[in-house]
């Protein structure tokens, strides 16, 4: 069964772009769920078990680092790989994300190839017909 993906970003534009890019990667992906902040993402995780989470860092209510910490602290969720998609290029927040257990990060602006490369060890390609 193809794994679902959860995209967490307060920008509807970025969520829409990531939806498109994810479909273009050629990876086997089920439903792509969307959340506008960390709180909303945690609510979705109560009913969905995604194979991957893509999360922004700077978000209102609950930011990406708080969300990552909450996800990694809960049994049953901590094995879900989380890749941060962020404008943060500095070591401070990205380093904190890695320390909290992020599987990696992609800096905005990003290309489809960069997303595909980052996800290649996490998701499987669509099998040939």
């Amino acid at each position, binding site marked *: 069964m193809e794994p679902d993906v959860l995209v967490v970003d307060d920008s*509807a*534009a970025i969520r*829409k*772009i990531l939806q498109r890019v994810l479909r273009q990667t050629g990876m086997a992906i089920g439903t792509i769920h969307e959340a506008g902040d960390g709180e909303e993402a945690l609510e979705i995780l109560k009913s969905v078990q995604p194979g991957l989470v893509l999360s922004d860092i700077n978000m209102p209510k609950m930011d990406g680092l708080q969300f990552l910490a909450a996800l990694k602290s809960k049994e049953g969720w901590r094995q879900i790989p989380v890749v941060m998609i962020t*404008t943060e*290029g*500095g070591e401070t927040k990205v380093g904190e994300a890695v320390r909290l257990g992020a599987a990696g990060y992609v800096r*905005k602006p990003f*290309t489809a190839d960069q997303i595909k490369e980052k996800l290649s060890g996490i998701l499987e390609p669509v099998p040939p017909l």
Partner: protein
Amino acid sequence: MSIHEMVVNSINRACTEVFSTMLGVTIAPGESFEEKTTLEANDGVLSLIGLAGTWTGTGSIACPPDIACRVCSHLLMTESNAVNEEVLDAVAELTNMIIGGVKTDLEQHLGPLGLSIPTVVFGRNFKTRSTGTTEWTTLRFDWDGSSLLVRLSLAPREQMAHPRVHTNTQPCAVEV
């Protein structure tokens, strides 16, 4: 290299990178100039984002509605003909990426900086004013006959003691 020169170089680098990567558009380096704290009245879309650290300030992008719609069309690969929520969100994200890129560059010289969530305003004849003492570094990017302005105001924290004030001098209907 002065702070102004660093900001100009960073804005040019970030803007050309974001436009080429996310919009598929090649944009020429912008014409740069410095502005005093009182800015001219604005028409169109204005996006603001705050920077905070040992240096603090504001980054902004201002553009007419046609450029805002074009940004949205290129970013989302959809046809946008009127300024709506999707267009404002696209301009906000453009601001986040460009000023975020500038922030990353400047952190090497100024230390860690925090970035706020962007705020977008759409209207006519509104003014933005900073009661601080800093000047704005502004770059004008031309895109098919229209201009997009990227501005940044940065100063050591003790010089930015006053809040920014935004005044809408003429209300107008907004399609959001």
